[in-house]
């Protein structure tokens, strides 16, 4: 297990490095100049700014300086469009994204997994078909349609819920629901498939034959294996919920990390872009690792398979 984790961590470093390389060169290839947003910047000021941010050095030097500063000083550079350290920007907006992501994840698990189990148990009945059709709606209707619809239908009518904004404890409900809905739908499909596969196996028949109650057979024996695909999905999905929430943040005006990322890409703010991209990459890699470890705990076959390789 230890060797497995170590190997994955090393691979994760490699991935981060690849991600850094891609974003670095894409950021350099991005159109326009930094510092053009401020009006009337003279050429000398610009040169001074470039020097200040270390942008006057040759490309290979810049390519090495950025990651080494992260390692030695935990310095992610300074945002050229906001004039603040990228680290502060991340530290300020990450908790918001995290709350949103946790809320979304709770919705996804709370809705998706029960629906999947019910569908699997009632396989090929009208309950199954209608639940799966609802799940398909969750996958096919984009967040930028559901979000505005929720705003008109619910936020405008229910007291205590605001159409947009962030500050009150209840404000996270609608964005989190919107964000979690797609994952809930995927989870429902994955759980259904996983549980169905397990329920068709011999040890389930044995459990029934032993006289266990159907509820117990499903919850105790069916779920352990049946949840495997869902667990494997949840790790990356959670990271994606935290990092990929640009749309939901835009619709509900949530001050999370996603907006910085899109703004950085538009305003050619390379340090912010690289900083946020690396942070996202790190999150995704860690979440993948965690879900792999959980899969290993739930399913001994995975560990044996890994060892056999």
């Amino acid at each position, binding site marked *: 297990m230890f060797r497995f984790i170590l190997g994955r961590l090393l691979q994760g470093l490699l*991935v981060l490095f690849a991600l850094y390389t891609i974003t670095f060169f894409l950021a350099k290839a991005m159109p326009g100049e930094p510092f053009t947003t401020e009006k009337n910047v003279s050429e000398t000021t610009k040169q001074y700014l470039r020097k200040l941010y270390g942008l006057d050095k040759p490309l290979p030097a810049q390519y090495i300086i950025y990651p080494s500063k992260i390692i030695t000083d935990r310095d992610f550079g300074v945002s050229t469009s906001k004039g603040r350290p990228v680290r502060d920007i991340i530290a300020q907006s990450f908790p918001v994204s995290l709350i949103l992501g946790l809320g979304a994840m709770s919705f996804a698990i709370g809705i998706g997994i029960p629906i999947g189990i019910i569908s699997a148990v009632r396989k090929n009945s009208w309950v199954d078909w209608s639940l799966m059709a609802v799940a*398909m709606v969750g996958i096919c209707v984009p967040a*930028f349609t559901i979000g505005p619809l929720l705003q008109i239908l619910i936020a405008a009518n229910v007291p205590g819920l605001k159409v947009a904004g962030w500050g009150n404890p209840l404000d996270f409900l609608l964005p989190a629901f919107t964000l979690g809905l797609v994952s809930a739908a995927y989870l429902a499909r994955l759980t259904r498939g996983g549980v169905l596969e397990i329920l068709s196996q011999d040890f389930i028949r044995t459990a029934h034959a032993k006289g266990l109650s159907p509820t117990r057979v499903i919850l105790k024996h069916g779920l352990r294996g049946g949840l495997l695909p869902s667990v494997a999905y949840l790790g990356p999905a959670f990271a994606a919920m935290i990092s990929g929430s640009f749309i939901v943040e835009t619709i509900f005006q949530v001050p999370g990390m996603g907006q910085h990322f899109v703004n950085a890409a538009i305003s050619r703010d390379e340090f912010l872009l690289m900083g946020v991209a690396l942070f996202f990459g790190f999150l995704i890699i860690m979440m993948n690792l965690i879900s792999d470890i959980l899969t290993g705990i739930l399913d001994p076959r995975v560990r044996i398979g890994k060892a056999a390789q």
Partner: protein
Amino acid sequence: MSEKTPEAGSSLWRDAWLRMGKNKAAMASLGVFTLIVFMCFGVAWFCKDPNAVTLTNKFASPSGEHWMGTDALGRDLFSRILYGGQISILVGLIATAVSVCIGVTYGAVSGFAGGRPDALMMRIVDTLLSIPFLVVVIVLQAVLSVWSSDTSSWIVQHWNWDKTFTDRLTNIVPLFFALGLFGWLTLARIVRAQVMSLKEREFVEAARALGYDRFRILFRHIIPNTLGPTVVYATLTVPGFIMYEATLSFLGLGVEAPNSSWGILIKEGANFMETHPALLIIPGIFFSLTLFSLNFLGDGLRDAFDVKASKD
């Protein structure tokens, strides 16, 4: 699962087609998708100009003149939806084609080569798979969109193409590649697994005995046999790309006027949702219906070809 599929290639496809025919949801989806494609690429040519602005006729209700009413600039919503659908569907299909070309070739070469080249190529795929897709596409799209305007003026200058047409073309072509360039990874894995089992089969041995070179064996004998899973996976990829396109357009990084797509229409509609929710809901219905039918179609194909859902 337990029975072996017969060797003859044509009967696999016929079997799959017969099984498809019994799946009502999949057949209905095929019908819906065909209808939407027919409307967007056929009926659209007989509709009003989607960009004709009539400021005196803003937010009109549906009528004989404007079947679905008009938008904030008095443009005909029905024809905007059909023309927008052209771009959305094209982006989905062409980006899928790009990723299928790359994915099948890469996966097949990797699986056929085996050994160290295979291990290296798959490590590269693993690495790329862990890179957040949308993150890279957004940056890539920001870079490509400026190149595209340069390319556009170059083409107009040197080749004398129509300016509006060229602008439209160079606006959407980068999208195909930004999406397609990263969408091939899972497909490469699927094809590799297929090729690895296929290359041990007798017909490959026979082809080798006939003295065919490796290139011909791979592309003429092995790859055609991986088409089933490829078709299934590609069908499920198209709605994903359509969704990505809409997401990018919604963020202002995708399709730009005078082009429009369903993502753009939904974005425009969301601005006026409180007073005129139809502008948000009608494009949303078309968009969701397309994704719905493609997903059901893909599921149906998967059952018909009996492809295992597992990833490796």
